[in-house]
Each structure stands twice: as C-alpha cells, then as structure tokens.
C-alpha cells in the first residue's frame, strides 16, 4: 500500500446519546457488542453539546426513530462530530440530504455488530454512510437480519468451495446430518432455497469472504 496506516484509532470511546432508558440501553448493548467501550452517556441534546465541546475527536451513537434522533444529530453536526445513527424508521432522500454530512452513518436497526463497527470506522473517516435497508423499509416494521452463526458460516464456506456434505462433515468432525442442519438454518436466515443462492447471499451480506 502506498500509504500505510496503523490499526484504526479505537482510543476515543463513543458517547451514546438518546432520550429514553430502553433505547439508551439497547444502543449501549449494540456499541459494546461491536467491541467499543462506551465513553459517556448523554440523555438530552444539551448534555451532548457539553460533552462534545470538551472532548476532541469524540463520536456519537444515537438512534430510535428519526424524530427522536434528529435533535442529537443536529447537535453532533454543529460540533462536526462523527455519528452512527441506528434508526428504526426510514427517511426519504430529501430528509437524508438535509441531515447527511461527511461523518454521519445511518443504519437500519439493529445492525449486526460488524456492520456497526464498519460504519463507525467509516463515519470517523468522514464518510457518509446510508444503509440501503433504510430505503425500502416501511415505517413501523423492523426487520432484523439475523447473522449466521460461526458454524453456519464455516459450513457455507466449505460448501462454496465445492465440498460435499460428507467432506464438510469430516473436515469439521461432525455428522453429515448436522452439516445439513446448519445449511438449512443458513438457508432460512438468508431467505434462499439453494446452495448457490445461499453462498451469493452470504457474500453479499459480508458473512463470507471473497
């Protein structure tokens, strides 16, 4: 690489900013599952503003409905802080461009931890991220993409490499029926009916490597 940078700077912990106990708890849990320590918690935009004024390079996790998140988003934008917003409703493109700025990542609730992590990195690199899932989403229903288990991932990866069910079973030291069980579970989570479709869907979702 022409320019090599070290691992990303994880030193600055995020501020979780949201009104409502339950929502804050969920956001803290999501942040921690993505292996970030929560730096501080802001219960209202004024508190967030204070925290942002004091800390350099601070970034913010907020979410809920767009209405709930909007005051926190504007506060963060005024301080030019990176934000990951985990939204349970969609926003049209007009609202999006009104809100969006370099450093705002908007994700559909609840994202898998690695999506959250990637969005955090990208927003701190001043990228503007928009989760395509927010576009098609109806306002109320929250569809949660269930991540594959590590076992389902491995079974799918070996299947994609052209291994037979028995060969996968031998390699993992499990029975062929268990392999079939994991495959079926992966099919269900990915909403597909065939091996080829499952592999493609898993690559598209970032569950399998290329």
């Amino acid at each position, binding site marked *: *690489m022409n320019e090599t940078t070290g691992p990303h700077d994880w030193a600055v912990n995020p501020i979780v900013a949201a009104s409502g106990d339950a929502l804050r708890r969920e956001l803290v849990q999501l942040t921690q599952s993505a292996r970030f320590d929560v730096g501080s918690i802001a219960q209202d935009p004024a508190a967030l503003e204070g925290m942002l004024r004091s800390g350099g390079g601070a970034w913010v996790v907020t979410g809920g409905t767009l209405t709930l998140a909007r005051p926190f988003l504007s506060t963060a934008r005024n301080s030019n802080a990176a934000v990951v917003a985990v939204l349970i409703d969609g926003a049209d493109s007009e609202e999006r461009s009104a809100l969006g700025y370099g450093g705002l990542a908007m994700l559909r609730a609840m994202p898998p931890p*690695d999506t959250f992590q990637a969005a955090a990195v990208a927003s701190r*690199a001043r990228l503007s991220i928009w989760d395509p899932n927010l576009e098609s989403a109806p306002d109320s229903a929250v569809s949660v993409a269930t991540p594959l288990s590590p076992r389902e991932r491995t079974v799918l990866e070996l299947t994609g490499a052209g291994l037979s069910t028995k060969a996968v079973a031998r390699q993992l030291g499990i029975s062929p029926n268990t392999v079939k069980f994991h*495959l079926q579970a992966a099919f269900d989570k990915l909403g597909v009916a065939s091996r*080829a479709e499952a592999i493609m869907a898993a690559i*598209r979702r*970032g569950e399998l*490597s*290329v």
Partner: protein
Amino acid sequence: MNPVLAEWAAARRALAERAASGVVGIDRGRGVRFAGIVWDSDTLVTAAEALHGSESVTVQTAHDVVPAEILACDLSVDIAVLRAKTGAPGVVAANPGGLCAGDDVVLAGRGAAGSAIAWTHVRQVGPAWRSRSGGELDRLIRLAPRLHPTLEGGGAFDLDGRLCAMAVRGPRQQTLGIPCETLDRVVTTVLQHGRLPQPYLGVRLQPVRLDEPVRLQLSRRGGDAAIIIGVEPDSPAAAANLLFGDLILSIAGQPIENGIELKIALARVPLGSVVGIHVYRAGATLATTIVVRERGRQ
C-alpha cells in the same frame, strides 16, 4: 401407416435412441434420480444443484450400474463433473452458433426402468450472460417445458443427435440450457487441475450507499461501494495492508460495488497474478496492488 409419417416416426425414434445413448441416470439415494451426460468414457457432467452435496452416487447406464465419484461442483454455473467408467462413447457437441429459438430438441435422461425422453423446442437463445449466482455462461438458452426431475442434468440434443446443452432447472420453474461451450470450459479446467480453483483475497464486504458528495468526489457512476468488514489473517488482503473500514473502489480496472462484483471480477483474472486495487481510506484514494491467490493455498 402413411409412409411419410412412418418415416418421420422412425427418424424421431432413431434420434431419441441416439440421444439416450449419450446420457445416464444418476441415483443419489433415497429414490432421488436425475440425469447426467456422458462426456467421455470416464467423465460425466450433471447439474450441481441436483447432487445436493452428495459425495458419491451410482450411475445407471444402458446396461450396467457403476459407482461415480464427484470431482468438482461449480454452483455458479450449476455444473458438476463426475468420474465414472461407463465405457460409453462421449457425446458429440453441436456447433455453438447453430442453435436458434424455435429449434426442436430432444431431452434425454434415464430412469430405473429405461431411457426417458421428451421432445421440446428452444424458447429463446441469447448472448453470454451471468447467472444470479455470479457464473458466466457462454450463451443464454431457454427451453420450453417445465423440466421433469428425471431429465434434470440430462442432455438437449439437436436433430443431428449432437449435444446443444445440459437441461437444468432455473429460477421461477424455467428450464435453462447450460451451453456446451460452458460445459467444455468447466470440464477442461477440472480435468486439468483435478478441482475448480477459486480466486481469493480474504475480505468480507458489505455494500454501503454513498452520499452524493462522496460519490462525485470518487467519480462513481453507481451509488454503492463495498466496505471491508473483515480481513482474514495470512490472506492476500492482509499482505496488501487492506484495513477494516476501507472501501474497495475497483480491482483490475473493474469498479466494485459489492462482494459479488468482486468475485466476478476475480474470476476473470489469472490465479497468481498481481492486480491493481483502488481503495478509499480516511478521505483519500489509495492505489496499490494485490496478489490473486487460490483459496486454501499459500
């Protein structure tokens, strides 16, 4: 019988018999049977999805039942290559340009009780296309009827008794023909390497929607880009210092919007080659190179 009709019927019967001699029945156990094509006296091809992850199957020829070993499965083009000593002569491939929409073809397979035949026609012929699973097919061939399971993986033969395509089940209950050229390409690779080599970089990607200013800054036509959410250790991506959170913009000159496009772009690059890759990191574009390696090999 009317002599013209009698001649017509006899010609059809001869063609059906010839087609049947180029196919076998494949039994993967529990009463599931489909068809395969005799490529040469040691090699069969069949539909990869129909095998359902089987490791070994038995093969019903016109006179015998023999075991078969599955050499390789390419799910992206739905082709599996099997080794079986059928002793039968291989099929003769039709001229790739010769097939037109409306042409009559005979589909052949083999059940336990004997050969299975269906007369049908080609519904559509088109240029090279890419399957939903990212496989590249040399021509689009759509066949008319819904495919009987016994005929899946069997051959579609023209009126000279030459093989045009392998009949497989496509999406929405369509019957697709996997063209002879594509079968030939896959069989040649498998017989040469003993497997189907898979190109590998070692990144997990998710598509992200770029906002307008970033899209313009990067002069991207499409609105998506692929963000790295995982770099596998000891992979080409790790060796190229790709990092978590990087956006892959293009590889070998091909713009990339998601993992599937990366997979397709890699399939066109020779294994072991060094290709250029463009990455967006922390507000700047980086150009570097990466080695395209075979998965599972250093």
